């Protein structure tokens, strides 16, 4: 399509048939008036066909009257005649205007706030602080001073070292970097001994500061000193001076073999939930952070109930939008007493005991061997764990 045709389509045109005694006079008046026309056809001496621009059609009737001609309007082409069809379709125009406004305005409204780069600081904490500073779903993007917001947020959150807020249309991307925590410094001015945390047999002694009080193979009890925080300084040979004692902070590592016995018990009967069959459903929606409830009475008529929530989020390929539909079902229940499954209960207690043992040993200790014993008593099921472990025995105790 030629450029000329495109231009004619954009500005629109109308075909006219001029009939009269002297149609050439009409043509000459059009030219004098500056009306653009083309496609002139002269079928006979009294008839003239031509195409005029849509914007020049007004006033041609008057020209025809002046020249004693009659104008018959033919086909219309182009964009302006097409748009004229919608001139009286007010609902369509209103909808179109609303859609355009929505496109222009909503495209600048923040709908999604995404936090990236945080590991220790929860996203909810950052989002709450940003919400206080005005960055939230529904905020008008160009009205936000993202630099001020990020600076202010950094001042309020001590665990963050850097923050940048980038607005990408309806999405606000919040990039954060967390502060590296300070290493825990050992205060060497606090003096004291290293004592045994649990009874056992010493397998290894490594002294960094202080005097070792035990050797490999020694048996120690809980609380017994393993490395003394006082160092004996002998006087020179043949000197009559008394030995000196220097107080230090005992440091070192004493490993040993220990035997730990842990017990746990559970009653033979337990109270379990028994659903009553009654339930109540609540529907709500959240639009740009504002919750709209679709129920009037929010009271729950059950003493004990489970609340089961399900949320449907409006998602786009770029992320989720701040429009959610939420359903909450409250299901009532009562307690009923029932006897427990002994095997399952024993397995559960054994797992609990192993977890407790690992907690006591820490990351450095290992379990060499372990065994369980179970016993039914009047109070319930009692499980005992006997474990042989290798662990660090020493624990620093400041001097009184």
């Amino acid at each position, binding site marked *: 399509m030629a450029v000329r045709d495109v231009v004619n389509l954009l500005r629109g045109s109308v075909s006219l048939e001029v009939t009269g005694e002297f149609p*050439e006079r009409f*043509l000459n008046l059009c*030219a*004098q*008036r*500056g009306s653009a026309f*083309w496609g002139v056809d*002269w079928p006979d001496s009294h008839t*003239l066909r031509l195409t005029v621009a849509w914007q020049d059609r007004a006033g041609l009737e008057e020209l025809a009257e002046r020249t004693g001609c009659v104008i018959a309007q033919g086909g219309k082409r182009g964009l302006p005649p097409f748009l004229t069809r919608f001139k009286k379709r007010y609902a369509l125009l209103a909808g179109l205007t609303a859609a355009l406004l929505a496109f222009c305005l909503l495209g600048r409204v923040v709908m999604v706030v995404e936090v990236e780069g945080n590991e220790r600081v929860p996203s909810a904490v950052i989002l709450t602080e940003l919400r206080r500073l005005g960055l939230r779903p529904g905020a008008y993007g160009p009205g936000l001073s993202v630099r001020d917001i990020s600076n202010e947020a950094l001042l309020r959150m001590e665990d963050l070292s850097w923050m940048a807020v980038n607005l990408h249309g309806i999405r606000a991307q919040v990039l954060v970097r967390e502060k590296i925590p300070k290493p825990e410094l050992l205060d060497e001015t606090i003096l004291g001994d290293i004592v045994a945390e649990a009874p056992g047999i010493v397998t290894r002694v490594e002294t960094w500061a202080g005097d070792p009080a035990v050797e490999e193979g020694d048996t120690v009890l809980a609380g017994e000193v393993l490395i003394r925080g006082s160092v004996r300084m002998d006087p020179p040979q043949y000197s009559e001076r008394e030995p000196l004692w220097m107080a230090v902070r005992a440091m070192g590592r004493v490993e040993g073999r220990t035997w730990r016995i842990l017990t746990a018990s559970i009653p033979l009967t337990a109270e379990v939930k028994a659903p009553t069959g009654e339930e109540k459903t609540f529907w709500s929606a959240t639009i740009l952070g504002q919750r709209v409830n679709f129920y009037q009475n929010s009271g729950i008529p059950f003493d004990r109930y489970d609340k089961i929530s399900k949320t449907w989020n409006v998602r786009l390929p770029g992320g989720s939008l701040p429009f959610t539909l939420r359903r909450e079902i409250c299901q009532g229940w009562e307690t009923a007493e029932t006897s427990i499954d002994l095997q399952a209960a024993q397995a559960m207690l054994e797992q609990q005991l192993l977890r407790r043992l690992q907690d006591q040993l820490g990351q450095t200790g290992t379990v060499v061997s372990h065994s369980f014993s179970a016993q039914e008593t009047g109070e319930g099921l009692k499980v005992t764990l006997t474990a042989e472990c290798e662990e660090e025995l020493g624990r620093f105790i400041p001097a009184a």
Partner: protein
Amino acid sequence: MDKNRKKEGLLERTAQVFDLPGEVVGLPRVELTGRGELRMENHRGILAYGQEEILVSGGKLLIRVRGSGLELKAMTGDELLITGTILSVELE
């Protein structure tokens, strides 16, 4: 009509005396590009129109363009453009 002709005669003489181009003083100017395009300035309107003959008023002159497939491509108050296969241009 006589007044106009006298006026055009005066303009023509003025152009000759002062050695000015004729179109400057409003005389019609016809420019032919090959056989396919005729451009005219300072015309006074179309008198007759057809695919084989177009008659254009130039005031004192009458320009008759003959040919085949003639078309008035564009026209303003002062200028016009005729396209097609032009066989002859006659001045009357």
